[in-house]
């Protein structure tokens, strides 16, 4: 009998740091937690007595809500802190703020931050579990996991699965987390977008690169469309949204060429008419809302596994 894989980490900062076995363990655990949402009583006592702090130094609705709901379903107590309302505005450092949160006996800190490395910085300094909910352009591990979970639910084994990730790869933490997880699980990943946003150097992640969406339309089993991030974009990356849509958008005409079983994914929020036509976004191939549901199960799994390895609160 093979020895079962065990989870020994207190933090989840990046999928790049995980082994394929650890990713699989997270996904398997998420599968068990997905079942909780289908019960009469959608709550388990696994994290009863634990306190989770949602510490978002960047705006977010869906990720924060998803973590909050996941924590409630695990019977944890939840505190939400938005940066605008926090002492960061008064000049307190991130570390001091986090130490104060830990001094309030927080067991888990879910951090969203505009700087890459912020979650790692806290994870190294706190006994509490630190879960990265997105740090700059670095990683967004739970989004990567929920995307992979959605693919796995549909296709089973991901080895050889043809996945195209389209859009702003350079600035996308979602893309980076996706690529790390997919490559580790043996998927065949192609990154698609303009040369300014999908430079050849990204091949070093283990993915292929193309600058023509037509190259992947007929063969892709998954097309993951990334949001054009107005807040991170500067004008020089592409001339206009209209041009981006004409070259890389999943229009109705392009959607007619994809495989019938192809999954159309999007991390949300969708820019309808930019990355994806409205009709396609509401069409039979889209699993965008499934991704949201799966995000809850994945985050429950992450909180459950990491909280068990957190040190005693201060």
């Amino acid at each position, binding site marked *: 009998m093979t020895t079962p894989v065990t*989870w020994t980490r207190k933090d989840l900062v990046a999928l790049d740091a995980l082994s394929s076995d650890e990713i699989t363990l997270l996904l398997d*655990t998420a599968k068990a937690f997905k079942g909780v949402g289908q019960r009469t009583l959608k709550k388990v006592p696994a994290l009863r007595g634990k306190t989770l702090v949602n510490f978002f130094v960047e705006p977010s609705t869906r990720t924060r809500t998803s973590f909050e709901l996941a924590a409630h379903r695990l019977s944890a107590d939840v505190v939400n802190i938005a940066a605008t309302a926090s002492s960061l505005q008064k000049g307190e450092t991130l570390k001091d703020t986090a130490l104060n949160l830990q001094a309030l006996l927080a067991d888990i800190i879910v951090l969203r931050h505009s700087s890459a490395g912020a979650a790692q910085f806290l994870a190294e300094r706190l006994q509490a579990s630190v879960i990265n909910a997105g740090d700059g352009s670095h990683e967004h591990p739970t989004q990567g996991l929920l995307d992979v979970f959605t693919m796995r639910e549909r296709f089973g084994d991901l080895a050889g699965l043809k996945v195209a990730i389209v859009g702003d790869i350079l600035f996308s933490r979602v893309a980076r987390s996706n690529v790390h997880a997919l490559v580790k699980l043996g998927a065949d990943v192609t990154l698609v977008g303009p040369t300014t946003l999908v430079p050849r150097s990204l091949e070093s992640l283990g993915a292929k690169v193309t600058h023509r969406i037509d190259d992947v339309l007929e063969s892709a089993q998954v097309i993951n469309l990334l949001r054009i991030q107005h807040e991170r974009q500067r004008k020089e990356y592409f001339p206009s949204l209209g041009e981006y849509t004409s070259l890389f958008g999943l229009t109705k005409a392009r959607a007619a060429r994809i495989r019938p079983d192809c999954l159309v994914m999007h991390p949300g929020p969708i820019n309808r008419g930019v990355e994806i036509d409205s009709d396609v976004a509401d069409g039979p191939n889209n699993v965008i809302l499934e991704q949201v549901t799966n995000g809850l199960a994945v985050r429950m799994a992450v909180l459950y*596994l990491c909280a068990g390895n957190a040190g005693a609160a201060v």
Partner: protein
Amino acid sequence: MTQIPEKPATVVVMDADAIRKAIRRIAHEIIEQNSDVSRLVLAGIPTRGVEVARRLVDHIASVEGVRPEMGVVDVSMHRDDLATRKRFTALEETQLPFDLEGRTLVLVDDVLYTGRSCRAAMDAVASFGRPDRIQLAVLVDRGHRELPIRPDYVGRNVPTERTEKIRVRFENSDNVPDSVQVVKP
């Protein structure tokens, strides 16, 4: 000269034949206690409780001609010792895809020890529905209960020290002959 540490001593307390007989006896006891087998649900607690449940269902079906429904109840997310657990392995999916209302549910585990898994299993079941009765069947009762929980069906009582471990092995999951062993420290 470095001393090679001694391997822990193991004592086989049930071989394949004893396990087969114990499961057959429990199956008959379940039938005796539950006149309407069609209203019966057996739910195994992973991992090896599921195999015991499967074998019980097979026996009951062969005797009664009616196959009781079978489910799986993973207790991990209902346990109260998250902070002290040393190992986190993948959870099994709880599967109780039937209405529990008005049914008798027999929880099945390989070893009954402190009773905490059983308590967690009852919590898990409660989040799916409200069976009329919950019974407990175990292949081995090793004692040392920490909760007021008593099995309804027992394959064998095996008195143990707390420092000892009970190891249950099944051929179809472990690739070794069926056995129950006491592993001494």
